């Protein structure tokens, strides 16, 4: 019983075209013949042949993946992008769509197509840590791609489609394992992290072996032309020429391109940038309603009591913001609900030594809480929910407020489900399903990170306001995103005569946050050096203002400051740059039609030190507004990580 020993036969067709005949089947058939069996079922034989016929890829250049994805309806620009990447760019591209246009969908389509064609098997997807699970979920749910999050070192080798954070992958012991593997496809999200060729990120990615490669970033150029050059050299070294010829051909000085037409042509071979202004993507509107309410005398007493207490303590501590965390928390909690502040007060009381003079004061406040019978905010929420008659998400910052609300709603015969960060994945999904299918109300403490998508709901109530605009934007982003078919209604509860009123004023009137287009805040904040800076500034102001009026004035000034920060380099030079220009620059990230300020739509993207984005591909619509001040004072920011 001799087995044929060759498993493949290699030959060359005329013209040097190699041809491989696989022979592994032959041994199997021979064995069965020798032993007269076992033979397979004729029906299955026929079915196997038909399954091959069904999935046969009959043409080099027609998109197969859509017939495999009956539930997915990509937008026209996503389809176009996928086709261009596959058939023109040959699987190596920078996807540089503006935020919120679905770069992930485009990448998913490309990946799915290659998987179906059997051209890709092993895939490495590097994304920021906070997006790992979201990617895994999207690929699995939307594309039926069995991707997994990297958890253990052995998974690099065993898992075909793995999602990991770049920071993990580039560190030992993972680094050597990853570099030892061949990847049919490499996808890097937030690829602007590769803009500096001196960083470990850049070095690491350059050492990876890959066949196809997609780089995703909304901001391909942040500061200077060199960044773009580096990014493209990750993808296709030499596309813009060597270092010298690139400088000669395309760069006047750091931030000013030349030969823009030619540069655009070269870039359009490797980069696709879809923009919101190109149309085709209609986001629904945000309808914002601020609901002012007046506290009951007892609630007002508690608020005043806590505010006074917080101020006194803060002054005693020498106005050190660093150590005032509990105090700030107290101040914020009292805006939310008595339940929230109660827990913190009791804990504070327990921590204080028996002899501390603070103890009676704290206890006084606790006594104040006891006297409160009703919760004005919760009653308002009840009223709102009943008048809305549709699904509603209520966001609160505090667990205690959440618990209270859940109980309150339940007592009034409304079914509500909770959602919070501490829940495990399964429970979160379960809560989502309950909300989708059976409950009218979801009370959530956690908005971002895990990326819950709730397009089926278009009412949200901010029971209290986070002081960090990013968190607020994340809240809104849960419901207001691609796929939302209705206008989104946002209700902000704010109590008269409290800090909350001022904060709301700042976020709404000044930053115009609630009405920004999707991703608008991203662009504002991306250009701020520290995203937490605003929150810290707020705290300091609140703690140090002596009167309500003073606080209001200071907050107004802070609001103006934030706006100029949209273009940080311009802000740094605010003394020199003339105000009108700056305002114009800052507005460019707003949807011009709804902005209160004169719109300069399509101006230089905020945060870009470049004189224009004209040279980026597909950007014919971008007007050539230049901001010489902003460009001239721009300092280089190197991103060493």
């Amino acid at each position, binding site marked *: 019983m001799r087995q044929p020993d060759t498993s493949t036969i290699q030959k060359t067709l005329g013209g040097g075209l190699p041809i491989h005949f696989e022979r592994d089947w032959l041994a*199997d058939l021979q064995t069965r013949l020798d032993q007269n069996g076992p*033979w397979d079922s004729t029906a299955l034989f026929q079915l196997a042949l038909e399954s091959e016929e069904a999935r046969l890829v009959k043409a080099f250049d027609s998109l197969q993946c859509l017939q495999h994805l009956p539930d997915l309806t990509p937008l026209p620009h996503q389809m176009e992008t996928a086709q261009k990447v596959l058939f023109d760019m040959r699987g190596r591209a920078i996807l540089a769509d503006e935020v919120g246009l679905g770069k992930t969908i485009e990448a998913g389509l490309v990946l799915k197509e290659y998987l179906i*064609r059997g051209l890709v098997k092993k895939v490495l997807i590097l994304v920021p840590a906070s997006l790992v699970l979201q990617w895994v979920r999207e690929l699995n749910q939307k594309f039926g791609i069995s991707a997994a999050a990297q958890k253990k070192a052995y998974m690099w080798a065993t898992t075909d489609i793995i999602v990991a954070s770049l920071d993990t992958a580039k560190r030992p012991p993972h680094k050597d394992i990853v570099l030892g593997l061949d990847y049919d496809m490499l996808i890097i999200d937030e690829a602007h992290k590769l803009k500096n060729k001196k960083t470990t990120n850049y070095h690491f990615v350059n050492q990876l072996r890959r066949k196809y490669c997609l780089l995703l970033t909304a901001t391909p150029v942040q500061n200077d032309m060199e960044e773009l050059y580096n990014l493209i050299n990750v993808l296709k070294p030499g596309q813009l020429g060597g270092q010298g010829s690139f400088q000669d051909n395309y760069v006047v000085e750091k931030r000013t391109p030349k030969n823009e037409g030619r540069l655009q042509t070269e870039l359009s071979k490797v980069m696709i940038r879809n923009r919101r202004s190109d149309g085709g993507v209609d986001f629904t509107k945000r309808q914002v309603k601020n609901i002012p309410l007046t506290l009951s005398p007892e609630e007002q007493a508690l608020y005043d009591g806590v505010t006074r207490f917080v101020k006194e303590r803060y002054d005693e501590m020498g106005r050190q913001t660093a150590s005032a965390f509990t105090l700030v928390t107290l101040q914020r909690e009292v805006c939310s609900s008595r339940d929230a502040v109660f827990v913190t007060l009791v804990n504070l009381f327990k921590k204080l030594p028996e002899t501390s003079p603070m103890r009676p004061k704290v206890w006084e406040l606790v006594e104040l809480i006891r006297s409160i019978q009703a919760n004005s905010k919760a009653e308002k929420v009840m009223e709102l929910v009943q008048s809305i008659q549709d699904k509603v998400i209520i966001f609160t910052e505090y667990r205690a407020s959440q618990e209270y609300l859940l109980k309150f709603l339940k007592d009034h015969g409304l079914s509500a489900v909770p959602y919070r960060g501490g829940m495990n994945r399964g429970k979160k999904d379960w809560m989502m399903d309950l909300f989708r299918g059976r409950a009218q109300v979801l009370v959530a403490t956690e908005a971002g990170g895990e990326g819950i998508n709730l397009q089926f709901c278009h009412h949200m109530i901010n029971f209290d306001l986070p002081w960090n605009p990013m968190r607020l934007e994340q809240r809104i982003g849960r419901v207001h995103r691609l796929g939302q078919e209705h206008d989104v209604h946002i209700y902000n509860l704010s109590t008269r005569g409290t800090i909350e009123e001022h904060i709301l004023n700042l976020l709404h009137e000044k930053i115009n946050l609630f009405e920004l287009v999707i991703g608008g805040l991203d662009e504002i904040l991306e250009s701020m050096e520290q995203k937490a800076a605003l929150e810290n500034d707020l705290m300091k102001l609140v703690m140090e203002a002596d009167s309500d009026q003073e606080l209001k004035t200071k907050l107004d000034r802070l609001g103006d400051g934030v706006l100029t920060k949209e273009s940080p380099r311009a802000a740094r030079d605010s003394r020199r740059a003339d105000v009108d220009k700056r305002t114009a620059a800052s507005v460019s990230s707003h949807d011009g039609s709804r902005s209160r300020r004169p719109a300069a739509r399509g101006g230089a993207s905020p945060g870009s030190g470049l004189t224009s984005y004209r040279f980026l591909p597909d950007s014919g619509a971008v007007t050539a507004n230049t901001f010489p001040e902003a460009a001239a004072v721009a300092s280089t920011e190197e991103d060493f990580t």
Partner: protein
Amino acid sequence: MNSKQVERYLLRYLESMNCTIEEKTSSSVLVKLSPEADKDLTGRSYYWSFVEKTGVKPEPMTMRFVFDPAAEARIGTVAAPGASGLPPMAVPAGFSPPAAAAGGATPAASPAPAPVGARPDIAPRAPAGGESPATASASSLPANPAAPAPDSILGRYFGVSLPPISRIPTDTVTFGSRRLNQIFQVVRQKGRFIRLFEDNGKPAAGAAPSSAHPWLCVNYRIDLISDMKREELHSLGLHLGTGELVEGFWEGVRKRKLTTRIPAGIHLLPAKYTLNKAASLLEAHLEKKLKGYDHQWAEDAKERLSEELARIDGFYEEALKGLSDEEKEEGSKHYTMRREEAEWQYAPRIVVSVVNSALLHLT
């Protein structure tokens, strides 16, 4: 494959695996899997090794396969994708699950059997979007002592109640779905090699036994690969006695009456060619056939490859100049790597593999 084709395919699979169809609607099928199909599809290897070791009676799973999710959603077995409108809510806490209610109510209220066509697992569900009958029935429930309200955790804490979780896993089987891909894979594993005999009925008494000619049928898949890919299927048949070669073989042969047993009164003619030799002949045939193709795709791919290589060469030759030795070493490593990647991505090639193969004895 459209949903009708998928449906037919699935039913043929289930039939050939000896599964028991318990219920069939226009959009789904409820099926009790055979042990073999259960092993293939449910991934319960521990359970099956337990069954085999302890010898307990195996209990294969019952599953519902849905091939038309939209139609099925109208009936109500699965949630409609993106169903909007208010579902039943504000159900009083302690409202008992409808199934229990239905079960409990029937004997008490009337001995009438369940309405024809009612499916126990879907009856309790309210149609999406409509005025909620669940709420309506809920209000009448407390009066019924036969349906004590179970104190579910959800009911107690959140005031919601769910119908009992259906123990029947429901799966969408559409083209591209995981389940269908899994079935495709199983089928390809299990439908590799067959041996069949043509049966022309009983020979007349005293007639000389008819001779059966040995044929090897191989279903080939040809992949033309560069950075993109095209595939073809070819079914070739080779007469193992004479070396005669027929294209489109299986399509013609499958219409004949074939059996797995040697029919009576048949004489099997011996094979002259070994399998090895036969495979070589078939491959030679394909090779000749492929030679006649227009290989512009390969020329295009080669051109793209040489463009890529030229670009890479140009870049690294400049980049490597004026570097220190150490940097140069690192740089040339990347250089080699990028060149290899380009070859990997673009170099045109043809791969011929075998889907399955049959030994046939044809009269």
